């Protein structure tokens, strides 16, 4: 059975390593500041005992005032999972660091989010529209997108 790790525990671990990086430790997810995202992701991936080597998915939700980017990570070795989130409040030019360097699996999914939600992933090797054509007006999955 995949165990969802206690968020509090991980949060304290991360807080120890990167002070001030946690925005909020929600009951089932960890909300981190986007500046620290890459560092924390790398930490989660490589630390003994955590070893989140499998990247389930990345998704983004539009909450009008901010975008929330959701990552779910799983460790195939320890069979536990964690959801980390990051928020970006800049609606005009939302930017989040890309985790493609850590998990190749994020490649197409980040492109998809860029395409449909308009969130830029800094450091993505090939950040182009994936489903819609170049020059498509707007980003359809945003809540304020009108046809």
């Amino acid at each position, binding site marked *: *059975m995949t165990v969802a790790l206690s968020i509090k525990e991980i949060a304290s671990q991360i807080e120890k390593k990167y002070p001030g990086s946690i925005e909020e430790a929600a009951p089932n997810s960890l909300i981190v500041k986007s500046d620290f995202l890459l560092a924390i992701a790398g930490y989660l991936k490589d630390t003994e005992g955590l070893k989140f080597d499998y990247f389930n998915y990345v998704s983004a*939700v539009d909450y009008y005032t901010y975008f929330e980017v959701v990552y*779910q990570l799983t460790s*195939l070795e320890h069979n536990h999972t964690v959801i980390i989130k990051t928020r970006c409040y800049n609606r005009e030019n939302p930017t989040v660091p890309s985790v493609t360097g850590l*998990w*190749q699996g*994020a490649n197409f*999914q980040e492109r998809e989010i860029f395409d449909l939600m308009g969130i830029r992933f800094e450091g993505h090797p090939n950040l182009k529209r994936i489903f819609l054509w170049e020059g498509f007006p707007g980003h359809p999955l945003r809540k304020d997108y009108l046809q």
Partner: protein
Amino acid sequence: MTTTGEITFKTEPFVLNFGPVHPSTHGVYRMRATLDGEVVLDIEPVFGYLHRGIEKLAEERTYTGFIPLTDRLDYISPMSNNLGYCLAVEKLAGIKVPERAEYIRVIMAELQRLANHCIAVGSFLSDCGAMFTPFMYMFREREKILDLFDMVCGGRLTYNYMRIGGVSQDIPDEFLPALQKFMGTMPGMIEEWENLLKQNEILLARTKGVGILPREMAINCGISGPVARGSGVKWDLRKADPYCIYDRFEFDIPTGEVGDCYDRYRVRVEEMKQSLRIIKQAMEKVPSGPVRAEVPHLIRPPAGEAYAHIEAPKGELGFYIVSDSSIAPYRCHVRPTSLINLTALREMVKGWKVADLIAIFGSIDITMGEVDR
């Protein structure tokens, strides 16, 4: 010509466009392949020819009303899509599914796995150039499964059978005897097509050692399902994170060793045998009782979010649903198995021949409905 007698040809790579209309791109997948003669130097996948904005459509439909649309995601295995979505909503709303419905769901999901692998294996072998014979044999088997689905839910492609809190209607009386008959014939049929091509020397030469996906890369690329298991990743959500009632059944996880096309093909065939095992165990113990929990048609799950994933035939299929306690999902994200499994294609085909490009692509088994959504 140099003085040493070496002939130095200057050859330029050229770009060959595969798809979106091509006999073996399984739909409308398109890739721009850079070739050096017959050798593939690089490919660039191009998506979006079947993009329908399913995730946006979900935001405008009720929770139940989205179930028919999940059929259109991976149209080779709609039952699994239905199941994954219903599990996510049930997780969100905290609904307990009746026992009988759980068993029916497992039977359906495993039949769906059989049906999907029939197509996956058949089209892979056909991509290797086997002149549609395995394809035809496997479609014949799939047809029997579709008959069963048709009997249960009245559709052959878009089943729309699972509901939030159970299944839409009880299985008819003649279903279990028919399933019994099917279970009687299926192992013999698998045997038959194993004889057809399992040891075929040409197929071995075409697939053994071709398109190797190393274990580390498979994990790093987020590959799941038979493709990952072919690379030796012993990861099956039915075991690792049992949903429904999979913890009650005995079955093995077949894995490959090398991670080549042949391993992926073998894993699929072995998985079919395991699916038969699960169905056999499940159909003996189907309890009586209701098939649907008391769930309002316009369900309003409490605000929150849930991610439920299942081991769909192609891999991990997940639904991430955010609710704002209205009748429609606030956000519904699909974790597309096929799209993510394609991540490693570029690395896998580099340096192989054009023919291998098709074989490797076929061995991944994608559905464009799920890739583009």
